[in-house]
């Protein structure tokens, strides 16, 4: 029997239709709307050319700052989560008692709702009554206490810190699976040759782990560029836009009825992500498609 009869195309139809209608179509009509003055305040939608883009990329508005914040968030959290995750994975992949317990606990933050993580940390980071400052006072480090989420100089650092707390265990788990997949014979052979721990890491673990590391970095970058919920719950972009990222800005415009501006930023992100996404998906699906 022919493949096309045995595996009819209409099996894929439902998935394609649903995905196209609710994920792709909004992206595309959104691009159209970004050339208009669509808002909640007028029934008419008029073509305005590039006005929205000029506004978004002009120095007078804060948007460039939000783009910068988003990139900063992405860069810092990706480096920190990958670095810490790798260190932990190397330390905890072997020779640890109760390792299933530890791994289970460290992975746990990523199954909790971001909303809940955010709420709990607003309490922990409260300057007067929060656990973190109480702890610092308790161990005599009074001078290190901070207004974690309201001091403009450190609020963004705190937000990134919470995100690193949340995401490191997930990256560690992926890397541990990667490390344990490296055949033991390599290490045995290296030991016979008298290789040190660092040499083993440099010549065996790291090269073998590279594809997995690449994937974790891709996942982190994608997540970072799209971040919304954690920032929304912790600071909602404040104080004074110091922690504003692209998608908190989009939500603000949406709630104010400034649809055209919201859709303009979303469209810039959409086009940008489709382009880089295309290459990333190639990395993610490489093996399966080649097979």
């Amino acid at each position, binding site marked *: 029997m022919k493949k096309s009869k045995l595996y009819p195309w209409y099996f894929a139809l439902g998935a394609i239709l649903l995905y196209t209608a609710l994920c792709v179509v909004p992206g595309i009509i959104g691009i159209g709307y970004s050339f208009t003055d669509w808002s909640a305040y007028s029934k008419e939608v008029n073509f305005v050319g590039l006005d929205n883009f000029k506004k978004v990329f002009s120095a007078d508005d804060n948007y460039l700052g939000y783009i910068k914040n988003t990139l900063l968030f992405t860069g810092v959290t990706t480096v920190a989560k990958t670095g810490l995750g790798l260190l932990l994975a190397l330390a905890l992949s072997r020779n640890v008692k109760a390792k299933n317990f530890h791994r289970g606990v460290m992975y746990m933050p990523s199954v909790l709702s971001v909303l809940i993580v955010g709420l709990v940390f607003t309490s922990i980071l409260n300057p007067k009554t929060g656990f973190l400052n109480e702890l610092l006072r308790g161990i005599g480090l009074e001078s290190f206490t901070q207004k974690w989420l309201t001091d403009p100089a450190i609020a963004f650092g705190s937000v990134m810190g919470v995100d690193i707390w949340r995401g490191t265990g997930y990256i560690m788990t992926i890397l541990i699976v990667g490390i344990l997949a490296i055949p033991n014979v390599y290490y045995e052979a290296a030991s016979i040759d008298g290789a040190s721990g660092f040499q083993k890491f440099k010549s065996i673990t790291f090269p073998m782990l590279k594809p997995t590391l690449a994937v974790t970095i891709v996942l982190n970058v994608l997540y970072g560029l799209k971040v919304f919920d954690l920032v929304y719950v912790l600071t909602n972009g404040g104080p004074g836009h110091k922690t504003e990222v692209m998608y908190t800005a989009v939500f603000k415009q949406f709630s104010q009825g400034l649809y055209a501006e919201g859709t303009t930023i979303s469209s810039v992100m959409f086009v940008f992500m489709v382009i880089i996404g295309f290459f990333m998906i190639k990395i*993610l699906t490489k093996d399966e498609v080649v097979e």
Partner: protein
Amino acid sequence: MNARHKKIVNYGLKNILAWIISLIMLIPLTLIVINAFKPAEECFTMTFALPKNITLENFSTVIEKGKLGRSFLNSLVYASSATVITVILGSMAAYVFSRRRGKAMNAIYMYLVLGIVIPINYVALMKVMQVTHLNNTMPGIILLYGAIQLPFTVFLLYGFVSKIPTDLDEAAIIDGCGPIRLFFNIILPLLKPSLITAAVLCFLNTWNEFVMPLYFLNSSEKWPMTLAIYNFFGQFEKSWNLICADILLTCLPVIAMYIICQKYIVGGSTAGAVKG
């Protein structure tokens, strides 16, 4: 220090590090559990002080005041319906993509998987939801959750379908199976562990999500747990005992599921990232 000592020190340090990190990870959850059982006067802030009088009153209060029963049901309906839709549509699509692998089919597969990457344009999505009369409706939010979970689900299942030998298909066809029976009676049962993985991840993601309802559900009687809690937090900002009770009720299904299905959850979300 000889090699043996070094090994012991190394082992000790590793285990201490493991415990320190685990404790840091457990701080928030421990705070929630302790404070959810405290009476209001002990709980102006969240502390590690154990409750002097353990009370269950917080739970009844939040269920009454926060109308949590309703939200709990909503969350359950959203998460399970979206999971069923995603897993059925996703496995059918993954099966066809994985078995056919022509140029056109690969291109469509890539198009679908691109959904893992591309961001949702929420503002324009509202327009689509309005035109299709899905805005602020329960079916609308369910379809939306289905749509956003499909790309990853198809990606995940594609890999698993590839591992089922095609000889089976041929044998079934020779025995007189049609394509529909072949898929539902032969392939699906073999995919069961992978389907569980996909379903668990889908359920958890939907249960935890709150951005979609934030944009597309205006009426509070349709809110899921997450959004209800967020709103509750706004009203009772100082009553951490109530907030903690609220959070605990939302987390319990997740944590129970995590403990029971840890293998599936961790396996599923690391699959694809690691090619052993």
